[in-house]
């Protein structure tokens, strides 16, 4: 028996699948039925409330909403009977009565007005107008004009069911019903996270991008073209459609991408205009003669010309290259280092590491992966010989249990978080482990919230392993067939009973047992983690524990299970894959493997450095030691992102020659000898690999401003200047060469990407989709087995004491990206989070005699910063959280540069700190 259904549609017999609606079948059959509250897009269920899609079903007393009604065998449907047509037209006429006139409307090209056109009905109504709500202009990015609202509830579904942000409800009832934010307060005063899903869903323009409207709320900005590309921010890799007018981005919509299904977050949707900021570099700059470098400098915009002079491209490239050459001539490759960027494309990363390795004969090339997931990758390489996720985050959809530890996807991977919240809503267990609470965001969806003591991850996780082993929940068959090292683990964790670890990590033994059981016994369990795991001196050990959990329970390599370190930057996966790492060539092949070394010397025609290079923090130390004297920094901002950033700034300022390639005069560029104006994400071709191992294509949306040039061209220009024979014609050619040395990109050609937009690696065949779930049969290790490595219990490097009694932890805010060089120049994001804050528990504020909003000095053994306090229940007592994106109070002035021994990642997540009321109140404005 098949699930096919045959029914009559407008006098014709048609076939449909069981479960399809009349609207869907009609659409397929070429019949267009008007619809307003129905949005035929992923994640949106039909609601059937607007009644614009009514059809007549024979034998039924009333009409049926075609978006809602499922077809049934033998049903006879008239999609356009007089009665149905009249009814739909009346619905529009009733709605029209209350709409603003089209010529004054918030969006004259909205779905609503388009249907009026398509149906050929009059744009006016015979019915009297009702009382309409007032406009709400409290939000910086979104204009709320509910006079155009038709109560279709798409915004409610967008907010509640698609993005699970739960801010919009339908308040009141009857004709008084209308969308409300929280308790019907202004959108800008509510818990709204400005993902803008509601704006994208709204069919009338009642919710609009504020920048498209004039002060009366009338839409005055219309795009002249739209380009499909990617979001520049996080590792989720959302696909976007960018709408442009006169070479300026007007607004951004989500596209139906493999990782985002039309969804975006506030950064992706509203954080686009940094590329048009007046700070944008449009001409190359060369440091003026005699202007000394000083680590303490604060370079104001208006004073840039005091430090730098504009130069021609020829001079700037010549100057940049010759400076590096000079250092190289004197000190050899060991005197040079390069920082590429996880914000750049795969092609840029590939070319950059190739330049450093081939051109300067050194492996001193690294990027910010060192500061984010280096320890995770170290542990994954050690255990599985693969540094990427084993399952995409959409695997949450099939999962029964998800552990989220040391990650705050609601802030840092908001679109990925929607899939987790989806899964939790459907009933999957969501176990969150984090010293900080997850409040009304992910926390509301958590089945278990374990707020453990910071830095005690190993205690908690080893205790879970102890429970799994002692209670017989190990998947012995899996362990025997696919792993090695289990006995060591068993011995190591024997002492880690939940009862012994409870006082260490602050979680009840019973709770540890409960979550261990849920994780182990669920059919499909998945682990997500982030910087809370990796940014510790024991980050590798933390990750080893998570890998062990998955391996001993066999929760890996199957749908809905696996390991997913949520990658931070939009291309941190790709930049790492492309070899922007000091120890490895592209595809993680050791630079110290003689055969590989020989292969690349042959390919690149030059002697290459046989030893691994230095990592980010090691490079800073080497500069202080006088070993490294010249650097090329493309798109990175170590003067903000490095731990103990004063020390890093002193290093950067001490260089003989520093070439910075960026969009702005960043804090790093203050100390440059030459600054090369480069291209923003929205201005370039390139491939980017997201956290799911999806290689995706970005297209240029606008032209770079002024004389700014493509990054890959600049790398090539420098290469040519130092004598390399590079002649890439375009980005596609770079990709093709890169793919030729990266087996991971087999079957993913540039041509294929142009056509398909996104392909997951590894991929077995040019005609097949890539493998989302990997390691279902074996691991890419020599033995084919995964290695279980037990973890030691080590305390954080710097524990609180009487002088520094609190714990400082750093991280991100939803609105700001990394060091803030982009997002703080994005007007909407700046408006939403305009200045530096330190979050403390309200009780700690009280103890300190502070009111939320007061200024404090936060000090550590490295330095002190002054900033405004924020009272947050999510921050436990005894902790202060500071986002590191704020230049005026750089959190990294405070952080501890101690490294994880294997991953070489610093302990951003834990150091001892002191918080004091700032005596002088706000930071003083400079005396004029």
């Amino acid at each position, binding site marked *: 028996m098949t699930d096919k259904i045959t029914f009559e549609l407008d006098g014709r017999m048609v076939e449909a699948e069981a479960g399809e609606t009349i609207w869907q079948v009609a659409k397929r059959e070429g019949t267009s039925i008007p619809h307003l509250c129905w949005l035929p897009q992923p994640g949106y269920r039909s609601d*059937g409330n*607007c*009644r*614009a899609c009514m059809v007549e079903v024979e034998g039924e007393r*009333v*009409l049926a*909403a075609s978006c809602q009604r*499922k077809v049934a065998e033998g049903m006879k449907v008239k999609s356009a009977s007089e*009665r149905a047509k*009249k009814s739909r037209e*009346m*619905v529009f006429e009733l709605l029209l*009565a209350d709409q603003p006139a089209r010529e004054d409307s918030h969006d004259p090209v909205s779905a609503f007005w388009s249907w009026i056109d398509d149906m050929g009905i009059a744009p006016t109504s*015979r*019915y*009297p107008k*009702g009382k309409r709500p007032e406009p709400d202009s409290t939000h910086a990015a979104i204009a709320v004009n509910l006079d155009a609202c*038709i*109560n279709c509830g798409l915004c409610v579904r967008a907010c509640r069911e698609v993005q699970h942000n*739960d801010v*919009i409800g339908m*308040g*009141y*009832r009857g*004709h008084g019903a209308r969308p409300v*934010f*929280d*308790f019907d307060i202004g959108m800008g005063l509510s*818990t*709204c996270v400005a993902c803008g899903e509601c704006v994208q869903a709204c069919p009338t323009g009642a919710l609009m991008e504020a920048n498209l409207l004039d002060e009366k709320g009338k839409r005055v900005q219309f795009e002249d073209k739209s380009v499909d590309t990617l979001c520049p921010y996080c590792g989720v890799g959302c696909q976007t459609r960018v709408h442009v007018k006169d070479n300026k981005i007007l607004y951004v919509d989500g596209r139906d991408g493999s990782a985002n299904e039309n969804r975006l977050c506030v950064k992706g949707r509203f954080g686009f205009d940094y590329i048009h900021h007046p700070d944008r570099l449009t001409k190359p700059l060369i440091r003026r003669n005699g*202007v*000394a470098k*000083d680590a*303490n*400098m*604060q370079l*104001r915009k208006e*004073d840039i010309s*005091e*430090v730098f002079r504009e130069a021609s491209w020829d001079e700037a490239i010549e100057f940049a290259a010759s400076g590096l050459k000079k250092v190289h001539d004197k000190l050899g490759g060991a005197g040079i280092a390069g920082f590429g960027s996880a914000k750049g494309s795969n092609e840029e990363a590939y070319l950059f590491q190739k330049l450093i390795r081939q051109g300067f004969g050194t492996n001193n090339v690294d990027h910010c992966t060192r500061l984010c997931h280096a320890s995770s990758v170290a542990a994954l390489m050690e255990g599985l010989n693969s540094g990427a996720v084993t399952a995409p985050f959409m695997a949450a959809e099939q999962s029964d249990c998800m552990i989220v530890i040391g990650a705050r996807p609601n802030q840092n991977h908001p679109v990925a978080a929607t899939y987790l919240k989806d899964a939790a809503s459907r009933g999957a267990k969501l176990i969150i482990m984090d010293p900080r609470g997850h*409040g009304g965001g992910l926390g509301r969806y958590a089945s278990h919230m374990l707020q453990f003591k910071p830095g005690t991850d190993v205690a908690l996780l080893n205790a879970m392993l102890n429970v799994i082993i002692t209670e017989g929940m190990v998947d012995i068959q899996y362990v025997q067939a696919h792993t090695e090292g289990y006995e060591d683990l068993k011995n190591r964790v024997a002492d880690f009973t939940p009862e012994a670890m409870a006082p260490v990590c602050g979680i009840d033994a019973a709770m540890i047992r409960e979550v261990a059981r849920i994780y182990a016994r669920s059919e499909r369990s998945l682990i997500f983690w982030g910087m809370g795991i990796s940014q510790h001196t024991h980050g590798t050990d933390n990750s080893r524990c998570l890998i062990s959990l998955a391996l001993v329970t066999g929760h890996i390599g199957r749908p809905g299970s696996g390991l997913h370190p949520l990658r931070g930057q939009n291309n941190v996966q790709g930049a790492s894959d492309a070899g922007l790492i000091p120890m490895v060539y592209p595809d993680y092949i050791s630079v110290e493997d003689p055969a590989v070394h020989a292969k690349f010397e042959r390919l690149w025609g030059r002697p290459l450095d046989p030893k691994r290079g230095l990592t980010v923090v090691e490079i800073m130390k080497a500069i202080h030691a006088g070993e490294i004297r010249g650097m090329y920094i493309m798109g990175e901002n170590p003067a903000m992102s490095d731990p103990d950033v004063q020390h890093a700034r002193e290093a950067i300022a001490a260089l003989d020659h520093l070439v910075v390639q960026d969009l702005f005069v960043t804090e790093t560029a203050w100390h440059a000898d030459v600054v090369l104006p480069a291209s923003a994400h929205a201005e370039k071709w390139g491939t980017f690999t997201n956290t799911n191992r999806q290689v995706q294509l970005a297209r240029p949306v606008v032209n770079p401003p002024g004389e700014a040039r493509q990054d890959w061209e600049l790398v090539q220009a420098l290469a040519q200047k130092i004598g390399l024979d590079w002649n890439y014609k375009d980005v596609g050619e770079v990709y093709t060469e890169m793919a030729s040395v990266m087996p991971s990109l087999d079957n993913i050609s540039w041509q294929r990407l142009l056509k398909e937009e996104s392909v997951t690696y590894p991929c077995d065949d040019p005609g097949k989709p890539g493998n989302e779930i990997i390691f279902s049969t074996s691991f890419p290790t020599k033995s084919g087995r995964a290695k279980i490595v037990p973890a030691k219990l080590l305390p954080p490097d710097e524990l609180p004491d009487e002088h520094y009694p609190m714990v400082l932890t750093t991280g991100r805010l939803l609105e700001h990206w990394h060091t*803030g060089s982009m997002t*703080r*120049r994005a007007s909407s994001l*700046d*408006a939403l989070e*305009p*200045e*530096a804050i330190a979050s403390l528990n309200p009780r700690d504020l009280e103890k300190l005699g502070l009111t939320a*909003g007061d200024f404090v000095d936060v000090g550590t053994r490295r330095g002190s910063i002054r900033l*405004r*306090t*924020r009272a*947050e229940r999510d921050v436990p007592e005894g902790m202060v959280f500071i986002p590191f994106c*704020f*230049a*005026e109070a750089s959190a990294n002035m405070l952080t501890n540069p101690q490294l994880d021994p294997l991953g070489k990642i610093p302990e951003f997540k834990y150091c001892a700190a002191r918080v004091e009321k700032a005596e002088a109140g706000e930071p003083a404005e*400079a*005396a*004029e």
Partner: protein
Amino acid sequence: MSDVTLKDGNGAVKGAGKAIHPGAGRRKAVPFPKGRVLDPVDLEVVAALIGAPPYERPLLIEYLHKIQDAEGCLPAGRLHALGDLLKIPMAHVYEVATFYAHFDVVPDGAEKPAATTVRVCESLSCMMAGAEQLIAALQSENMPNVRVVRAPCIGSCHTAPACHVGHHHVDHASAEKVKELALEGHVHANIPDYQTLGDYIEGGGYKVLRGCLADEIAVDDVIARLSDGGLRGLGGAGFPTGRKWTFVRAEKGPRMMAVNGDEGEPGTFKDRHYLETRPHQFLEGTLIAAWAVEAEEVFIYMRDEYPAVIKILNDEIPKLQAAGLVPDTKISVRRGAGAYICGEESAMIESIEGKRGLPRHRPPYVAQVGIFDRPTLVNNVETLYWIPQILEKGPEWFASQGTNDAKGLRSYSVSGRVKNPGVVLTAAGSTVQDLIEQCGGMLDGHEFKGYLPGGASGGILPASKGDLPLDFGQLEKFGCFVGSHAVVILSDKDDMKDVALNLMRFFEDESCGQCTPCRNGTEKAVQLMSQESWDGQLLEDLSKVMADASICGLGQAAANPLMSVIKYFPEDLK
């Protein structure tokens, strides 16, 4: 140039003063996370009111009642705390709280309402008996800390005008009486004398249920008897009860059951009558039904306008449990909160789940997908009330009571211009003329002009159609229906235009707002009907789309009275 950043020449280049950043620097950071700041005091107060966890989200409306009862309103802070404890977003709490008329949400900074609320019924029968004058009189009284609000039907049409002072029910209300009650704080429900459990058992009560529980009778036999007796859904739809049970039983368990005690149709008060006089006969019927469909849980959804009934049920149900009469099912009372739409069975189910009362689309029917998406039996109070007697006295006894080809007994709620209004228990299929006669005839000085055969939504018939049998399926050809058998008698003193407007205002207030034809249609209709002369074409077009395209019966029927007036009383439109 400022002194801050640079020194010319070869000297050190220093930064000083306020640290600089790339932002615009025009705004200050908010010292709290996004949104309203939760006050720990609110958390403490709400936790004390709703008790210890675990909390159940579907009980949201019950929790809201606890706060409203304790504080006389729902301050924003308390709602925030409630959402926090229940892990429910603010928007969800707010949309539920603002949907129901009996909740007074007080935004931050706004004033709390007066401690005592007088709700004066403004539905048709009370209006005809002078509710407007009563409201005016009360509003002119000096009553500190008392507010007077208009309310839809409170099920006292036979004792109109009626009102509630707090939860205290006032029949034949006068301004003096109401003032006295309000100022003296008589705000609690007055519990009528009702048949106790002991009396009911003494008279043979619960024998049938015990027989069922002891498997002395098969479910199929029970169903067959109800079908033979011709028992139909007396909430207004008239669906054969036995067949409904069969449908529900055919669905895979676990199954649920709900009793629709949301008797909100203006003019209807029969359920209240039985619940306040013989609650155990109803409860026995309920438990027989629960047994028959093997309901895992039974929810008795009772309208908040019947506080005495809620008290009675909450007092009596534990006695049944103690007596071992509820061995296999959980049974609880869920309190409505002032929303007519929750009498619509799927809206009621939404409300039972702790949500706004929005009717669901059909199919699927609630028998298939009901409470928490489980197959659900929904029966009306009176339907269940007759079951013990039908099973005891036999189907023939019940079936033979009808007239004019109808089967069974019916409880007509008769109000309006008759001498002795009240519940008339008589033969199904009786005519309005029979009913007027049984009610002692028309009021002196009133001449029979027309009648509402089925409450606010059943349309209006002229006196010339006074010989129609008032039964299911008989009136549809006249644009009317009998529904819950609420018959309101109108006289030559009543202006049909005003009557229709009163009814349309009721629907406008009570529309849930979900679908366009009803939400906008009722609002536009009120505007059009308030005009001096009615625009027939506009109203007809409106009626058509409301009837054809509304999601539920409310919108589909809301224009019935309006169309009746156009059709049967054209002279009143002149």
